[in-house]
């Protein structure tokens, strides 16, 4: 047995020793490694739905437009310019003279094929199907792409579909079964995917023929971490160079590391409460077990008055958020953001909240809990949050405290994410639930979550609703903004929609969490956020940050790596020697025992 162990120990030494030195820097290539905690679902853009995959597609493929790095307004990408007919139904795009990464010219035919495929092949609709739902026809003539719409659509310029090379993809028989794992990929973005290992990493190399010019780093590696805590360790250690989407505690833990830049900026998200104010299905039949008191807008407003948003920001988010005086669009989007002012503005005021409930006839019982005006039920609400989310737990604690002061009981219900989505999206078995969405530069999608059509059918099909909202005022405003091609006027309508949500309170916005990221300044010499003025890095829209990325000269990095390797080798050697010594000593002693 001892010999056995000695052999194993020797093997361990071999495995640990020189390996580290060899694994150091990859020659003098400039490589930047980005850590992510969501894995790629499919490399086929027609099928992929995950955020991380969308980010990677942005780097590999060209789109019609890209958000401008300063204003976030749609700006030319593969489409050099465009015109709209006066009725808003015909859009003509001029496709840029550029080349695919395999040297073939890019034409409008590629774009027409991509959209056409999605319009005619159900298998190709998984990823971005809704983007072409309003398309009547698509045609190409040289570099000119013409799209005819069924109805005017203001969000047309925020088209989320990557343009695919027809000459490569038309050969694929069944798009719905194709994994897109052919490397190098043929694309028109700043990078070319050269390798993907499931749940491990995606390797992207700079596209030398990119029309804006070759990116400054030679290789981007998107590295997947199953465990967020390990990704923080990875950043501190230098296994990765940049990480986005951090939660406040992880972000705080980066403090004090001289090599790491803590990137704290306005985020794309709004955190809000969705309130079950009498959920109905798409044929207007009531469903779920929502508390009847929440149907009363006065109760919802009273709850709104009983929330100290500043305190939530300070205590729950560690100060890394902005209290919400608006609704579901965060202030990052200056053009579309709306904030309440004057009498409309709800501020933390428990006395006022109590008065509203008193006036509305919800009397406090001897136990301090209010009852319905007819005395039928106490104001006891369930609050649904996700399991294993300390932030939501803390939030629930604060809300429970304040609501108690206005005679409302809150019981926290922790649900795993699929059960949570089911209750808040289909069965409506909740009273109040935590919610929030990331908002794109064009906010149409998040606005649409409050449309009547988003409610589930009687059989529980469909969904994507927020609070089961269905309001004629909101609905007509939505249709108006959809047709309004003048950006300023459209923004005006969108603000009215947010005002409606604020006053009617089917959702109560709590705060806008900051975007928290971290990167190593000993590896990354420069990176342009989007928007350029204190914007986002990994979490932003478009390829801008990764296109402008500059790596620190690799020489220093390589030597650092081999030092680590050397230390590792020595340390491992010491450990194994110690174990070996122990064995020897024991053996000697054993023999000595017997001699006596």
């Amino acid at each position: 047995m001892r010999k056995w162990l000695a052999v194993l120990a020797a093997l361990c030494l071999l495995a640990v020793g020189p390996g580290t030195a060899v694994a150091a820097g990859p020659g003098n290539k400039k490589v930047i490694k980005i850590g992510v905690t969501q894995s790629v679902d499919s490399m086929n853009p027609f099928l992929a739905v995950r955020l991380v995959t969308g980010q990677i597609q942005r780097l590999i493929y060209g789109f019609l437009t890209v958000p401008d790095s300063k204003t976030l307004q749609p700006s030319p990408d593969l489409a050099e310019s465009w015109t709209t007919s006066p009725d808003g139904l015909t859009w003509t795009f001029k496709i840029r003279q550029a080349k695919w990464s395999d040297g073939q010219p890019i034409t409008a035919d590629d774009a027409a094929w991509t959209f056409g495929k999605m319009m005619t092949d159900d298998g190709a609709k998984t990823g971005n199907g809704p983007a072409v739902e309003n398309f009547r026809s698509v045609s190409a003539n040289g570099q000119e792409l013409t799209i005819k719409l069924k109805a005017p659509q203001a969000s047309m310029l925020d088209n989320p579909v990557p343009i695919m090379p027809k000459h490569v993809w038309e050969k694929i028989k069944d798009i719905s079964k194709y994994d897109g794992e052919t490397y190098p990929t043929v694309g028109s973005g700043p990078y070319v995917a050269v390798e993907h290992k499931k749940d491990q990493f995606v390797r992207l190399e700079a596209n030398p023929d990119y029309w804006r010019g070759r990116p400054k780093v030679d290789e981007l590696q998107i590295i997947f971490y199953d465990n967020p805590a390990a990704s923080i360790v990875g950043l501190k250690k230098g296994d990765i160079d940049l990480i986005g989407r951090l939660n406040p505690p992880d972000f705080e833990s980066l403090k004090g590391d001289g090599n790491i830049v803590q990137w704290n900026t306005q985020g794309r998200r709004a955190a809000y409460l969705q309130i079950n104010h009498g959920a109905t299905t798409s044929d207007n039949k009531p469903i779920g077990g929502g508390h009847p008191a929440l149907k009363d807008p006065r109760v919802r407003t009273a709850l709104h008055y009983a929330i100290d948003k500043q305190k939530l920001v300070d205590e729950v988010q560690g100060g890394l958020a902005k209290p919400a005086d608006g609704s579901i669009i965060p202030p990052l989007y200056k053009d579309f953001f709306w904030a309440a002012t004057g009498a409309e503005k709800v501020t933390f005021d428990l006395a006022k909240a109590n008065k509203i409930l008193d006036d509305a006839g919800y009397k406090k019982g001897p136990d301090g809990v209010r009852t319905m005006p007819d005395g039928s039920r106490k104001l006891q609400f369930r609050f649904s949050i996700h399991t294993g989310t300390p932030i939501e737990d803390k939030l629930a604690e604060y809300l429970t405290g304040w609501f108690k002061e206005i005679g409302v009981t809150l019981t926290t219900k922790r649900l795993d994410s699929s059960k949570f989505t089911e209750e808040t999206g289909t069965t409506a078995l909740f009273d109040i639930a935590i919610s929030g969405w990331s908002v794109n530069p064009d906010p149409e999608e998040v606005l649409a979550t409050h449309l009547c059509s988003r409610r589930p059918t009687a059989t529980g099909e469909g969904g994507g609703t927020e609070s089961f909202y269905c309001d004629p005022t909101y609905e007509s405003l939505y249709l108006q903004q959809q047709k309004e091609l003048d950006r300023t006027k459209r923004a005006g309508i969108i603000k009215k929609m947010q005002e409606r949500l604020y006053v009617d309170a089917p959702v109560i916005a709590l705060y806008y969490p900051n975007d928290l990221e971290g990167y190593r300044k000993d590896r990354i010499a420069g990176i342009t956020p989007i928007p350029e003025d204190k914007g986002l890095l990994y979490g932003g829209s478009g390829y801008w940050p990764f296109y402008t990325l500059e790596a620190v000269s690799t020489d220093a990095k390589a030597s650092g790596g081999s030092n680590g390797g050397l230390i590792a080798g020595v340390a491992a050697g010491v450990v194994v020697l110690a174990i070996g010594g122990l064995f020897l000593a024991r053996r000697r002693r054993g023999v000595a025992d017997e001699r006596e």
Partner: protein
Amino acid sequence: MTSAVDELEEAPARRGLLRYAATKAGGALLSIAMVIVATFFLFRLLPGDPVRALAQGRNMTPEQLDLERARLGLDKPVPEQFLHFVSQTLRLDLGVSYEYKRPVLDLIGERIGSTLLLTGTALVLAVSLGLWQGARAGWKPGSRFDKVSTAISLVLWSVPTFWLGLLLLMVFAAGIGPIPGIFPTRGSSSVDKPGGFAGVLDVGQHMVLPCLTLVAVVYAQYLLVMRSSVIDEVGQDYITTARAKGLRDDDVRRKHAVPNALLPTVTLVFLRIGFVVGGAVTVEAIFSWPGLGQLFYEAIRVPDFTLMQGTFLLITVSVIVMNTLADVVYHVLDPRVRSA
């Protein structure tokens, strides 16, 4: 004359073994069939809408969701889905993963290597360490060696795997104080994995922490079983006889006591081999080790029915098979079981 007697005695024994093995195999097949049925319904009982969960934070319209549901065959009635599942499974086709849009068998094939490498190495180490330490501890129960090693193994056994793994990660991957961060934080190899022997070393280096975690939490059971088994043997007459013959104490332990004491660990080792196939979900998740455990974890997170079914089936079937093998091997090794 003597040979004839031998044959007479051996033949029924061999026949008995065959019959025993056949019964056991039959039982195993029955279990597997039940597992196939249970697998399907078990996962249908889980809450949540797999299609919506697939989007993971991205908003999808009802049309998109319906399309996806149809693509996955989830729009069909459950009995139809069940028949489809059974016929597919019998043809060794585990279906296509919702999430990855690829055959489950391919996904398993990609992972099984790294799982076997990690858990296999850990098993060998844990068994060697546990049995060796257990034998020594049991030989002189109550000695300092016994007390210390039993205490250490029990503490490690009681420690939550997740906590221990994270601790090792923090200390030996990130580095604390004078301890430099020497091991990688994730995966089974570097992205720029060097070729040849250097590549093997690279994998070895990635394996140290997850392997250490696994060994630390599982070796106690081997130690304890071996220890009590050796303690049993120590009191036996043949040990006294061996000692009386003037054999060295070490030799008595190694050549007489240990081989006999090993018997009860056979079942334990075989059972563990069954689990080795499934990987170690927690450890793989902590160290982002791309094995079957991580695949299963990912499948539950989505939830990806076909992937869950596939990996779950593979894991349960391998446990059943190994369990059966353990029974048969035990039957061969231990005459007392045979006669019983």
